[in-house]
């Protein structure tokens, strides 16, 4: 079987038979009804919902970091302060404020 010829013939068949453009009865009426029943998008409501959704992960992250920081501080106190065992909260603060510290150094 000549596959290249079959390829061309089948594509010619598809080209020769374009699909119909018939539209179901009263289709535009149905679309307009759907549009009318769809609630108007309130940008503030969308923003508010997004904030509420983000609140839970943020609180969870803050609690986890707080707990880890607290536990690390406790363990470093019991084992005695050394140069290596720096408080995690200090690391965290340094990282968070790195950009501010750098800008202060520049100015």
């Amino acid at each position, binding site marked *: *079987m000549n*596959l290249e010829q*079959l390829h061309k013939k089948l594509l010619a*068949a*598809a080209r020769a038979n374009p699909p119909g453009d018939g539209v179901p009865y009263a289709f535009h009426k149905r679309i*307009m009804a759907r549009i009318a029943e769809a609630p108007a998008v309130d940008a503030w409501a969308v923003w508010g919902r997004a904030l509420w959704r983000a609140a839970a992960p943020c609180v969870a992250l803050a609690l986890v970091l707080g707990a880890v920081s607290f536990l690390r501080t406790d363990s470093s106190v019991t084992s005695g302060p050394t140069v290596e065992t720096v408080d995690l909260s200090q690391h965290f603060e340094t990282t968070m404020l790195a950009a501010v510290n750098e800008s202060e150094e520049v100015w």
Partner: protein
Amino acid sequence: MTASLTYPDDSSLLALSKSDTPAIVAPMERTEADLIAAVLKGDAASFEPLVEKYSPRVFATARRYARRESEVEDIAQEVWLKAYQKLGSFRAEAPFEHWLMRLTVRTCYDFLRSHQRNRESSFSDLTEPENDWLDRFVTQPEVANADADAAKLLIARVLEQLSPPARLVITLLEIEDRPVKEIAKLTGWSVPLVKVRAFRARAEMRKILARLAKEKYL
């Protein structure tokens, strides 16, 4: 089509009475730009003439990618709902029809991607006319008519087995004969990506046809 009746002002009425010409004022059709502006101002009813005018094109495009009429209607409905929601992003630099066709093609592509698991993977269930057409093609290729219903069914079957990007690019490039640049605009892909996907799509199609030949004759 919604039309607004325009009334002549006093001066034109005066002119008409002077010349004794019959005063027939044809209702002026609202342009697409007027309709779109009205929709954006909150007059949803002005969207209806656009739906009525362009639905045939949307349906014809959707029928290239979906076989069942219920699926075609779902695609068309999604296109129009998206068009209504995103009308604010329409820039009047290009005709509304071009913008709408981009939206339609992308919705069809999303449809193909979401239904790609349903693709058939075998040619074992070819109908009798399809088998006959293939047999005729093997014995006398020039006699096998491309207009035959069996050929239409076969190409539909082959297209259904292509991956979504391959099917989209084969349809736009090989069947609808659109230039690469236009396909890039319609799909949102870059020109080199369209070319790469076209190359891969042709190879994919040849592979499917080879499998068809193998399953049927070996």
